């Protein structure tokens, strides 16, 4: 246990700013050594409050939600709070943005830091005014003395406050005193976006910077055999053509010259071992693997009474790309034994480590500036594109170079969402009671950032932990058995929005709907009937809170016009999920199907993420999660042929457009508990099955394969 004194550090910075250092991640806790903060709150003499923390903004709103938490305890003037992105240094052991953990992990440290700063300022004010500390209060950036009728701005107190000892046991506010947390708050950085001033990775400009693009082997795992740069070098503005480990880089005075040079480059590739690989072959391998028993990831209970009716279904899920609108890019500047990078990354520390390894230099010699991110969705947890930029800079003799991926590069060379196959089986007894459940997932573990070890590939708990939505089935069924079958693939697999959960939840919740129909029960009733039993269910590392799940279902029934008839050709369906044991979500979807064309009319979401920090931000995340999911169900699919991805832009990897966006209603379960949980990923998994179940209600057709194509509904 660290004490408060070890947890916080107070200092006076040059320019008379009070700085409070603290740790924002328990994984970074010191091993009893000297306390090294990895996050700071700075209060400047002009009253500006800056939080310096290692969280990347990619649209999830951390640059607003995290300042809200701090400002609440500090009693800061909200308009003067900013978030500054920390760059990785030796004090960090885990720095990155993912897993919907940002608000959750920083909730307590930010509150404690804010409360401590407030206490220091109050103590400094008491000394200056010669009054009792208890007679003072903090209010929106001022210390107020009601007795003396005086208000001192925080900025005037920072120098004195920095000289004080760190106070112990500073009380945090009660939730009833919150005036910022829980209030719908607009994005702090919205202004920069609408004026074109916001700088993403692609917008970085440093003196003498060159622009580059890389020609990559068309086949996964292929390599460059030889190349002839004669024609490319004749393009005006092309400065150099160099080979790197990912392909051949064309370096030019501007992006257009680099792209033209790339077209003029003659490269002979060695296809390598995967030239025959295709999605069809992969699907075949998954079907073959499904015949094996696999690794058991959960086996609970026993079949209480004989099964008289068994229902079995197989669900299929494709590969997907992330396709953020800002393609991968990084500016790298290698100079001697140092390297400076500007990267739209979710994983700056990994960038630093891997660039240091590539260049054979100490990590301390690598500086990573994290820029705004034009869509992350998990893709930018990979460091490949940043390391590539460093390699290009070095191969070109050093100096700053921006490596920009074309849209086709981004589509074909990403870290993709894994395809999967799900074998579902359930049994009813003679009384029509569901007595057995089995879910076998056939898929591929992440292999892009690092490959699973030989030990992991024999360890059922490893496979359990990568099959969210399978082993953590929340329902109370006498016998539950889940399994995982790994299938090797040359496709680079990495985290995608909601990671392992979307495919599993699609299969589980669609199959639940099949079972409800087989039992002749309403799907909400059917789920509620199977959410009795223990209130808390522990499955693997997660705990399912069944009363919370029941509450979101009951709220959905109340808010969605559930049971109200819809016109012919339209239907309503629902699904629910508990994301990673934390955020509880239920959806209803209303669709109209005409001649195989699906129109999503209305989506209602009930969302329980514990403490609600910024309701406006959470609603935006749900809206985005709905659109993301509908794209995956109705539009996009990444396919492979002759060893490479077939899609190259939004023309063939289609995504939902504005004219296809449904009406979306979000109902947040009021703030409760003492912790906020994530909101970026949890909206995704149950949306697709709600849609699929609505399509069944509208048409009687059961969709068991994504994406949904018109011919599947014929």
């Amino acid at each position: 246990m660290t004490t408060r004194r070890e947890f916080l550090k107070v200092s006076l910075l040059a320019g008379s700013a009070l700085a409070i250092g603290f740790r924002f991640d328990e994984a970074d806790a010191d091993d009893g050594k000297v306390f090294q903060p990895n996050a700071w709150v700075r209060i400047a003499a002009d009253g500006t409050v800056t939080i310096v923390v290692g969280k990347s903004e990619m649209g999830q709103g951390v640059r607003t939600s995290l300042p809200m938490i701090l400002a609440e305890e500090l009693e800061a003037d909200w308009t003067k709070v900013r978030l500054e992105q920390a760059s990785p240094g030796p004090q960090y052991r885990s720095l990155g943005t993912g897993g919907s953990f940002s608000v959750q992990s920083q909730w307590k440290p930010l509150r404690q830091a804010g409360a401590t700063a407030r206490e220091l300022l109050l103590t400094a004010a008491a000394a200056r005014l010669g009054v009792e500390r208890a007679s003072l209060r903090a209010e929106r950036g001022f210390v107020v003395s009601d007795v003396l009728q005086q208000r001192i701005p925080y900025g005037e107190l920072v120098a004195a406050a920095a000289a004080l000892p760190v106070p112990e046991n500073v009380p945090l506010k009660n939730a009833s005193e919150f005036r910022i947390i829980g209030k719908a708050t607009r994005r702090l950085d919205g202004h920069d976006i609408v004026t074109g001033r916001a700088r993403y990775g692609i917008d970085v400009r440093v003196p003498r910077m060159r622009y580059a693009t890389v020609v990559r082997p068309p086949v996964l795992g292929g390599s460059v055999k030889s190349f002839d740069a004669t024609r490319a070098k004749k393009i005006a503005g092309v400065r150099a053509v160099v080979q790197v480990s990912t392909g051949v880089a064309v370096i030019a005075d501007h992006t257009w010259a680099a792209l033209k040079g790339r077209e003029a480059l003659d490269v002979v590739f060695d296809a390598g071992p995967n030239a025959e690989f295709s999605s069809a072959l992969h699907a075949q391998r998954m079907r073959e693997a499904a015949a094996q028993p696999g690794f058991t990831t959960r086996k609970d209970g026993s079949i209480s009474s004989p099964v008289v009716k068994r229902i079995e279904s197989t669900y299929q899920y494709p590969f997907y790309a992330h396709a953020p609108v800002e393609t991968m890019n990084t500016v790298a500047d290698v100079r001697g034994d140092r390297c400076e990078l500007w990267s739209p990354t979710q994983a700056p520390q990994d960038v630093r480590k891997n660039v240091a390894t590539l260049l054979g230099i100490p990590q301390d010699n690598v500086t990573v500036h994290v820029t705004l991110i034009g869509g992350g969705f998990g893709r930018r947890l990979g460091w490949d594109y940043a390391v590539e930029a460093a390699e290009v800079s070095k191969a070109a003799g050093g100096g700053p170079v921006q490596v920009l991926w074309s849209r086709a590069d981004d589509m074909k060379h990403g870290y993709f969402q894994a395809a999967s196959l799900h074998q579902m089986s359930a049994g009813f007894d003679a009384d029509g009671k569901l007595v057995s459940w089995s879910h076998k997932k056939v898929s591929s573990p992440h292999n892009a950032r690092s490959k699973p070890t030989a030990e992991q590939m024999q360890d059922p708990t490893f496979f359990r932990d990568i099959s969210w939505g399978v082993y953590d089935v929340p329902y109370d069924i006498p016998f539950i058995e889940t399994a995982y079958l790994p299938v090797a693939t040359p496709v680079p697999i990495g985290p995608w929005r909601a990671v392992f959960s979307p495919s599993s939840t699609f299969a589980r919740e669609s199959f639940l709907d099949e079972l409800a129909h087989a039992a002749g029960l309403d799907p909400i009733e059917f789920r509620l009937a199977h959410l009795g039993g223990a209130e808390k269910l522990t499955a693997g590392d997660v705990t399912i809170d069944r009363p919370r799940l029941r509450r979101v279902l009951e709220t959905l029934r109340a808010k969605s016009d559930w049971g109200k008839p819809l016109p012919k050709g339209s239907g309503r369906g629902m699904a629910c999920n508990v994301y990673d044991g934390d955020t509880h979500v239920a959806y209803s979807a209303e669709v109209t199907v005409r001649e195989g064309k699906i129109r999503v009319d209305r989506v209602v979401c009930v969302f329980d993420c514990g403490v609600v920090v910024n309701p406006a931000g959470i609603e935006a995340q749900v809206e985005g999660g709905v659109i993301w999911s509908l794209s995956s169900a109705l539009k996009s699919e990444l396919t492979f042929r002759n060893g490479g991805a077939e899609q190259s832009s939004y023309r063939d990897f289609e995504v939902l457009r504005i004219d296809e966006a449904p009406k979306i209603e979000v109902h947040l379960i009021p703030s409760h508990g003492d912790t906020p949980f994530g909101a970026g990923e949890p909206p995704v998994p149950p949306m697709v099955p709600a849609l699929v179940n609505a399509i069944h209600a509208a048409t009687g057709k059961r969709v068991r394969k994504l994406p949904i194509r018109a011919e599947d509904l014929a």
Partner: protein
Amino acid sequence: MTIRFSVNGRDEAVDVDGAMPLLWILRDLLGMTGTKFGCGVGVCGACTVLEGDRAVRACQVTAAEAQGKRFTTIEGLSSDGTHPCQRAWLEEDVSQCGYCQAGMIMNACALLRRTPKPSDADIDAALRDSVCRCGTYVRIRRAVHTAAKLGGTK
């Protein structure tokens, strides 16, 4: 060849290959990075700018075609965020990552100049060629209506 055109009311002259897209002239030569690259093949709308009152894809306009034309980019709406479309975008808190929003706003401006009071269907038709991967579409629709109320024909 030397290309002369105006951007946000300022005359520019660049000496480039006539096939060079306006997008890269703006971003890499003139340092105006508010106009974004998303696909380079005219299917995402991230690079939308105004040519006169018309929305065009900067990645599909060559330097030769830009000769003598007048363009407005996101930077040219207003630097203080007071243009009705910018205000509406802030009012409706549209942006998530924000990367596609410059293109969305420029499309909305062009729509409002020809259709001052657009219906949902008008908005969908005008913006259906623009991709927002964060999924802000429902707010974009609201924001265009709000911009119309704020006098978005400007």
